[in-house]
């Protein structure tokens, strides 16, 4: 049996694997957090792209953006993302049925099922299906999809949106617990994209996940500065220093040997001071 602790999964981001002590431990759910525009989606796509390059199956669960837009966005990077499969759970995907050239899966599933029903049953089903883009329904859709195809990498982009779409406050925590448990049981390596957590709130995904990669984007001395931290990584030593990150035409790049500028360090220092 291969040694999970030493045989790591590459994230596909140059420099990030070194921060993670070689990469991610396979078969576990991780969180990628950061503010808007910090590069979370791009990190997710790079992670999936890396899998596809190695001949693995990779699935993007798109909640925030419709797949066509994601495709447009990453095409600018010149990546061949055609092999990444997309589970479209974007709210609008229920409303119209438009094929995009990315391999789209399951988006039509519920819609198709609706058409085959009688009128009364259909109304009933509409009631259930329409507001039901939630953490629960995602788990069910993922389950269906993973039964048919075996993936080794999954990215959920983003959990924050799913949480907003979920109505019931109390079910939210147990829904997240269940989703992460489901992922752990299926054995896929998953990245869950979330917004930067509210520091006064205890988000269940953050304490249930096996690791958190945080992307920072801040204006420091009228310059935009980006860096990345590994907030936690269970079962592995990892780099505790913030490391500079760049977003360019080749995607995200992390420099694991350099320190971030002193001014940025001060910002981080001031922030954690406050948080304490």
């Amino acid at each position, binding site marked *: 049996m291969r040694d999970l602790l030493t045989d790591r999964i590459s994230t596909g981001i140059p420099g990030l694997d070194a921060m993670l002590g070689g990469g991610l431990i396979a078969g576990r759910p991780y969180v990628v957090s950061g503010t808007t525009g910090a590069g979370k989606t791009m990190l997710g796509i790079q992670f999936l792209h890396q899998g596809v390059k190695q001949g693995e199956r990779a699935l993007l669960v798109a909640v925030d953006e419709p797949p066509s837009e994601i495709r447009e966005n990453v095409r600018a990077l010149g990546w061949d993302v055609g092999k990444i499969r997309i589970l479209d759970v974007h709210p609008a995907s229920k409303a119209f049925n438009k094929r995009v050239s990315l391999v789209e899966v399951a988006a039509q599933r519920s819609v198709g099922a609706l058409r085959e029903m009688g009128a009364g049953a259909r109304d009933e089903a509409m009631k259930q299906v329409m507001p039901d883009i939630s953490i629960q329904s995602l788990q069910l859709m993922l389950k269906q999809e993973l039964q048919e195809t075996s993936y080794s990498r999954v990215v959920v982009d983003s959990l924050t949106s799913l949480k907003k779409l979920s109505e019931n406050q109390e079910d939210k925590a147990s829904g997240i617990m269940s989703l992460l*448990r489901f992922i*752990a049981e299926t054995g896929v390596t998953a990245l869950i994209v979330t917004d930067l957590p509210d520091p*006064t709130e205890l988000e269940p995904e953050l*304490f249930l996940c096996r690791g958190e990669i945080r992307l920072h984007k801040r204006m420091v001395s009228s310059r935009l500065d980006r860096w990345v931290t590994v907030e936690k990584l269970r079962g*592995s030593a990892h780099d*505790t*220093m*913030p490391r500079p990150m760049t977003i360019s035409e080749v995607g995200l790049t992390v420099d694991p040997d350099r320190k971030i500028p002193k001014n940025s360090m001060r910002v981080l220092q001031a922030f*954690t001071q*406050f948080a304490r």
Partner: protein
Amino acid sequence: MIKDKVKTGVPGLDEMLDGGLIPGRVYAVSGTSGTGKTTLAMQFLLEGVKSGERVLYIALDEPPNEVRLNMKSYGWDVGRVQVFDATPDVMSYDRTPVRDVSTERKVVYFRDLPDTVRLTSEKSPADMTVNTIQELVRQEMKVRKYSRIVVDSLTSLRFFYIRTSEENASLISFLRLLSDIGVTSLLTVHLPEVSRPDVEIHMARGEIRLHKWYDGRGLIRGITVEKYRGSSHDHRLRMIKITSTGVVVKSPPAEKKTRTADDQHGAEDRVPDSEELPPPPDDVVQEPVHQPPPDRQDQIPPAPPGAGQNGTEGGT
């Protein structure tokens, strides 16, 4: 007195606790994510194993096979720690009746665990509540006399194992049971980044808190004993390291000498905090906002109100 105390197994921590933990009581280990709570808790259990005690790990956050693998990275053999897999099942979201799990899941040694995660039964996922776990601990204690129990984490217990408001009372009753049966227990508690008083922590007889923050040079880790009923203890913040052999508390005098001028800010802010405050129980209720001391405001802009709430504010 001191020789009767329970050793934590964390180098340097017993010294902070004036010899260790008073046996038979419930303690909390708190901290934000990635501060080393599970590692510290496992050190506590392994210390018991070393002296031939029976110890129990109740897994609520992570599947125990993963915990075992993670601990291997410290070179620890957790095989003789007994474990109860209380991790919840995947929810099926349909109306199939759930089973009561207490009769089906057993306490086993870590060494007897399979390498893979326990799969949710397709037909009937198990339902687990605080009551189930409490009943299990009660039964287990009749069969085997445990001297140390770790619940990892209490936060999960509150988040996922309490469905109705009546069950809030059962959480208290669970903690009460742990102290009634005379076992020394450590409960891990996840804290948000800006800490708020936590109900469960009040019920514990002591709280060991783990910290991490950045100073000018990098990540700093610290440990404080926030409260400790019935014993004197170190009120200062001490630096810790998570090394390849686990959590190690560094001794304070050597620490000060090796620090650079830049480094000291992080530590100095914190120390007056703990010293000004009277000993427990009040010091667990902390003001969430710590202002930087005035002498530093020229160097570091004070965090603007709401900074970090969404992280989008710019600097200067």
